[in-house]
């Protein structure tokens, strides 16, 4: 019996290109599809010198993805999700920044675009499952019947943090063929399979902000919309003393040290952002330490829900080593209380808290 068609999400980068090449080499019928998410030309000021290659959706990357598909010898299509991406990812990103939060658009994109609209598109063209180049693993727990999300074998590349929002249905229809590999092995395989982009560099920035200047993006985007402008505000200390003026709360994130425009004689950090008054509170490093916080918009992976306190390892941003914590249900079923064993720096509203048991994702939510 012929194998079922799989749709491979191809970004034009090495990882997803290797996924396509290896699945094809295994005799798996696949169709490559590149998601057109954002028109880089819309805010051309944000394209860094030398172009935006390596950031998704630049014409160069679509070109690369198509070139890979043609070299590998698979059908390939570009699918346009720009409308949905702007509505679900870009607009909330901007809204978060001007509301004093620090968003993670990649997670939202995973939840609402890559593992939602793309899965739908795959199904519509006749592919029941999708494969992507994420460094994470999906396994089925035969005793509970639940789909598990585990860290990628290459811990330095692990992307499970960005995938905590996947539902059981989404996990059941997705595969991450690189989850068991080291990045070096992926590059080597790219060469072995003659993947044209084997030596291409990597993108680390958010795809629609190719130069990494989020504040500029927020301003240009609001400018383009013409319906709102960012409001100025002041930097204050814990006692409420005004220290400096600033160009809008979207320039700041909790824990930020640089670009505060104040001199306190000792290192100063953003400890709190008050969007309603436009105040950015700064203080000492010690003032940044917190032990407990709450999360909302929960998603559970290895467990169906949280009924009782649970000891976990918690991660509160991508570049953060998971640390011991206890998570507890609260009176509000939509919220969970998190308490670290020891105080942590810069627990930032808008970021995700993701809980692990070993290398398996228990679930997570968004820091309030």
């Amino acid at each position, binding site marked *: 019996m012929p194998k079922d068609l799989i749709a491979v999400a191809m970004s034009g980068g090495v990882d997803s290109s290797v996924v396509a090449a290896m699945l094809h080499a295994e005799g798996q019928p696949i*169709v490559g599809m590149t998601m057109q998410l954002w028109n880089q030309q819309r805010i051309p000021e944000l394209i860094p010198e030398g172009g935006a290659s390596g950031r998704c959706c630049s014409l160069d990357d*679509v070109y690369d993805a198509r070139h890979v598909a043609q070299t590998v010898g698979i059908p390939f299509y570009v699918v346009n999700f720009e409308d949905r991406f702007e509505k679900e990812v870009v607009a909330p990103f901007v809204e978060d920044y001007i509301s004093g939060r620090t968003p993670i658009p990649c997670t939202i994109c995973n939840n609402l675009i890559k593992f939602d609209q793309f899965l739908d598109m795959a199904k519509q063209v006749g592919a029941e499952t999708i494969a992507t180049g994420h460094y994470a693993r999906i396994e089925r727990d035969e005793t509970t019947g639940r789909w598990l999300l585990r860290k990628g074998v290459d811990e330095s590349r692990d992307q499970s943090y960005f995938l905590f929002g996947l539902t059981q249905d989404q996990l059941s229809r997705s595969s991450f063929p690189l989850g068991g590999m080291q990045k070096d092995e992926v590059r080597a395989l790219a060469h072995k399979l003659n993947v044209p982009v084997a030596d291409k560099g990597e993108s680390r920035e958010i795809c629609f902000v190719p130069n990494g200047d989020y504040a500029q993006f927020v301003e240009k985007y609001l400018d383009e919309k013409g319906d709102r402008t960012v409001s100025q505000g002041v930097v204050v200390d814990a006692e409420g003393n005004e220290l400096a003026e600033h160009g809008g709360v979207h320039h700041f994130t909790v824990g930020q040290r640089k670009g505060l425009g104040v001199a306190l004689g000792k290192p100063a950090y953003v400890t709190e952002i008050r969007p309603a008054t436009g105040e950015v509170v700064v203080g000492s490093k010690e003032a940044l330490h917190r032990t407990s916080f709450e999360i909302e918009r929960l998603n559970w992976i290895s467990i169906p829900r949280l009924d009782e306190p649970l000891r976990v390892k918690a991660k509160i941003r991508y570049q953060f080593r998971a640390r011991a914590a206890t998570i507890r249900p609260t009176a509000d079923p939509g919220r969970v209380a998190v308490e670290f064993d020891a105080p942590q720096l810069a627990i930032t509203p808008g970021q995700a808290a993701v809980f692990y048991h070993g290398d398996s994702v228990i679930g997570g939510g968004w820091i309030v």
Partner: protein
Amino acid sequence: MKRHYFDHNATTPIDPRVLDAMMPALREVSGNASSIHSYGQDARRLVEVARLQVAELVHCDSKELVFTGSGTEADNLAILGAVRAAKGEQKHVVTTAIEHPAVLQTCQQLEYEGVAVDYVDVGPSGIVALDDVRTALRPETVLVSVMHANNELGTIQPIAEIAEAAHEVGALFHTDAVQSAGKLPIDVAALGVDLLALSGHKLYAPKGVGALYVRNGVDIEKIQFGGGHERGRRPGTENVSGIVGLGAAAQLAAENLATEADRQGALRDRLEQGILQSVADCWVNASDSPRTPNTTNIGFNGIEGEPLLIALDLKGFAVASGAACSSGVVEPSHVLLAIGLDKSTARSCLRFSIGKGTTEVEVESLLDMLPQVVERLRALAPAQTDA
């Protein structure tokens, strides 16, 4: 997998007879058509035979034809060339909202250069109303550009009437005939056009060659520089083999125009009726308007054209949704928006365009396949809105 091509408005395969005609130009005739020696004269002879063949297709004097590198280039040369050559401080151009990007973007370039441009709307018929053009005309109008047949709908525009109206205010008239040349009879005198653009690869000639008819006495500026080719109007060494191909294709098109129009028209009608009968809740865009015999544009309520196109392609049927663009991204068609469809309705439409090679068997196998694919997509549609 057996493949079936229903996208002849995008491009056509080279007719084997056209290829045969081209081979001597590629293998044996190596000269530059502008050279004085016998090699050059051999090449020139081929170019001029081709010019006569194209002239016969559109019923003009061969001296009125300029060979170009594409239909897009012919449109650019016509519009930029005519407007820049026109006299006057305040220049004004009238075109329509359903033109091909080769015309639309050239007009936008003119706007950037300070020329005023009006884009006349069309209604659901996909036909430009003569009165709307008249309303847009001004004393300073120097050019009116209206396509002969629309690429997406096939709708045929009232060229002769509009050309007459343009001339009444002293403007030149250009038509983009890329989609009609070879499909509809063209007589430049009867149409009353001053400029007419056509493209080789839409009529079974190779890609990379086009032609512009410039009525005797009409002055256009050249838009590229480098030599005296094509009577100084299109510098650049002639693409001899391509031009020979265009000539041969034009001759074949002229010979078979009426029979092919009947044959393809019958296939198109069968396809259209077959789809309307076997697929619920679909419609033909601009169905009551005069259309090129090979084109139908059909909307499938409640589904997206993009996955439908991909699903059909994966099953071996090549169709189109909107105009393809260079990055391969499918954008909602400006033509469908112009006839009053909203964005999501426009996205649910596909274009099927038949050609010389299309057979009844192919139409029937498309009719066998299409209803189940549409049904499957519709069955999946609710899941998408829940998600």
